[in-house]
């Protein structure tokens, strides 16, 4: 099983992930409001802080647990996915989600959330800085450790030079 991993230090806030997400999932519509991944951009004291917020596919998913219509189920790719035909638009999932990664579409009146694009997430595919990665779950910890170690070694080498 794979999951989306974020290195927030690499995010430039370009929002390509938002655009491609809505374009693919809404069949040709560019609309950040309908993107399943949301880039939170904040400018504070002339410094941009940006953080893509996306569904972490909780092991114990509150959205799934509270859904009165049993419209959210687990997919083969490990995503919690919404069955739009079953969704009653009650918004309980919105309230339950701890990070704001599911919302009810104002036009379709059903919940929309990340489905991992059937195991090939477009947001990851087109994140040119590598801030978003799609990694096998068991390798996530090691990958993070390697990333930090590489940085540490680079600093050490610079110091030695």
């Amino acid at each position, binding site marked *: 099983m794979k999951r989306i991993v974020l290195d927030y*230090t690499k995010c*430039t*806030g*370009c*929002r*390509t992930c938002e*655009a*491609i997400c*809505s*374009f693919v999932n*809404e*069949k*040709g*519509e*560019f*609309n*950040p*409001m*309908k993107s399943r991944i949301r880039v939170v*951009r*904040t*400018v504070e*004291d*002339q*410094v*941009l802080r940006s953080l893509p917020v996306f569904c972490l596919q909780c092991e114990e998913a509150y959205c799934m647990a509270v859904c009165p219509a049993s419209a959210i189920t687990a997919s083969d790719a490990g995503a919690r996915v919404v069955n739009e035909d079953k969704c009653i638009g009650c918004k309980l999932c919105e309230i339950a989600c701890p990070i704001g990664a599911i919302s009810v579409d*104002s036009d379709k009146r059903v919940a929309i959330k990340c489905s991992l694009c059937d195991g090939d997430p477009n947001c990851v595919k*087109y994140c*040119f*800085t590598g801030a978003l990665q799609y990694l096998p779950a068991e390798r996530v910890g090691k990958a993070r450790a390697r990333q930090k170690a590489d940085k540490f070694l680079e600093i050490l080498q610079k110091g030695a030079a």
Partner: protein
Amino acid sequence: MSRAGSILRIDLTSQEATRVPTAFYVSDYIGGAAIATKILTDEVPPEATALDPRNLLTFNAGPLTGTLLGNKCEVMARAPEVTNHPIGCAGMGGQFPSEMKFAGYDNIVIGGKADQPVYLFVHDDEIEIRDAKHLWGLDTAETQVRIKKECKDPDVQIACIGPAGENLNVYALILHDIQNTAGKRGFGAVMGSKNLKAIAIRGSKGLRVADPEGFLALWKENWEYYTQGHGALWARLFHREGWSRQIADFGKHLDVYPWGYFDTYIHPPLTRETEMGEFLRKHKIGSIGCAFCPVQCQQNYRVPGIGNGGATCIMYESYRFFIKSDDTRLWWKLSRAANLHGIDIIDISNITGWLMLMYEKGILTAADADGIPMEWGSEKAAMTVLEKIAKREGFGELFANGLVPAAKAMVGGKGLEWVHHDLNQLPSPSGAPMDVTIAGVGSLQLWRSAPSYIWTSPPHVDFHGTYPWMAEELGMDLEEIRKTLEAWCDDQSEKYTGHRGAWRPEAVEGKAALLKMIECDFIACDLTGHCDYQTERLPHMGTRGGLELFSKWLTAATGTKYTPEKLLEVIHRKRMLELCYYLMCERLVGEEIVPSPRFHWFTPRPDGHFKGKFWASDLEGSIKAGTEYSELWGVDPNTGVPRRDTLERLGLQEMAARLEAVLNRS
């Protein structure tokens, strides 16, 4: 399809908002800047000044803006007179342009004048004109912070002016977010003249493209080019490393950038401390840029003791070279202050350099500058110039209408002959010396009405600014990379002009066609909303564009079949409207171009690439290229007036009649 569908029109005098369907203009003008050209030439009387309430300030997104292939809007209005170019334009990127589209607007057209300071809050279909008295006087950063709080929405996108715009300085800019500006042309003053402090916008609507599959394929091709192809090298080295490599190389290899106010091209040797790359390594906290762009060309800096902000492009070379200071912290302090005051950095640093040169030559004394000695590299002098000009205090008042009028007014005009400005009388940027044949073309009438591309260097300039670091990166020696890049430029020239080598500064054959191609590529960006740094004019640096590509993008986005020929027709129509309008302004209000005596400023170093040769002496070649250039546009090369049949073929009979009436009258 891919258009938002409406043009928002605001009259600040009557405080009324109306919406006009974009479709009304689409068949003849496609979108963006071309639509604005039609509106401005139709509605702003030629005799109106830039600061007249009858002037219209327009923000123009194109059909590609808000999609993955577009992220800019072109800001246009009747520009302050000093530019000698009646309809000015300045591109602005960031998040604002796509937010305009998501709010439902392709263009925003603002006329009239509020009776007191206001800002505009556009939230989808809701339009509010809000009081801005409490914001008047605030800098560009604080203004945005306050408005976001008042709108109770941190995602609202804001374009605003600083004190320079409020004080109607002709060099005032409009700034959005950290470092996106509509810099040239003095639109900050136009906005200030309308008592409009800011526009805040927020949208929740979507944009659909006609052919999602086709569009996605075209975008993927572009994305791959800029993230993995040759464009990636350009994006990383040239932009994300903040020009540091390029600037570091100037001192070693090039004779392109002056040191001081064009009085020498010999730079002091760089040290670790004075190298821009060191500043970048110490203070850069991230790359930032426009929505959906894989280049992200701006750098976000945190600089203890001075303050934070963003930098990009020409900002790196302006203060640093003009005031002869390689103190990178001082460069940052001044550049940041200019942005906060809302004044264009190229312009203000050019002015500062001129004052310092005049002081060195004894033409000006400290007494002429309110007691401040204008010594090279002086922080006190440079900061005083900036603040006084932005606030119109003391001698700064003289510069409110521009450097040329100020130079005429100071010490009996003795410093005028040293002023460097371009054909639009805008202070020259430090780099990008003009291709001299194009300079010759520029001195002909047709160029006068050209958009802001006068600063646009043909490939050779960036070429020489680029190849040393590209050689290093690609592991080639200098001669090898030079030959490789020259071959690219030759191929490009042949493709567009039929003449290999047309891009070279000394070339005459094919020059007119090359110039027209560069111009068309830029205008295509302006009317579609694609970034104009991603055009085919810089083939050696890995950018791509061209009318063929734009046609494909537009077809997939809008569902209307576009061809390069159709695009060229619309560009031609826009260009001729501007020229006719210019000619009417010239006749009615007597605006005329005064080429700078130092326009041909480029005197190469004897030991540099050009071996000291000064190409500008080829007047005959320039005139030949200029004549060809006029003919390519269907303009009489002797009078600079578009031929009647040219206008009629473009369906501009009405404009032809207006122009004829004015010409006959005068």
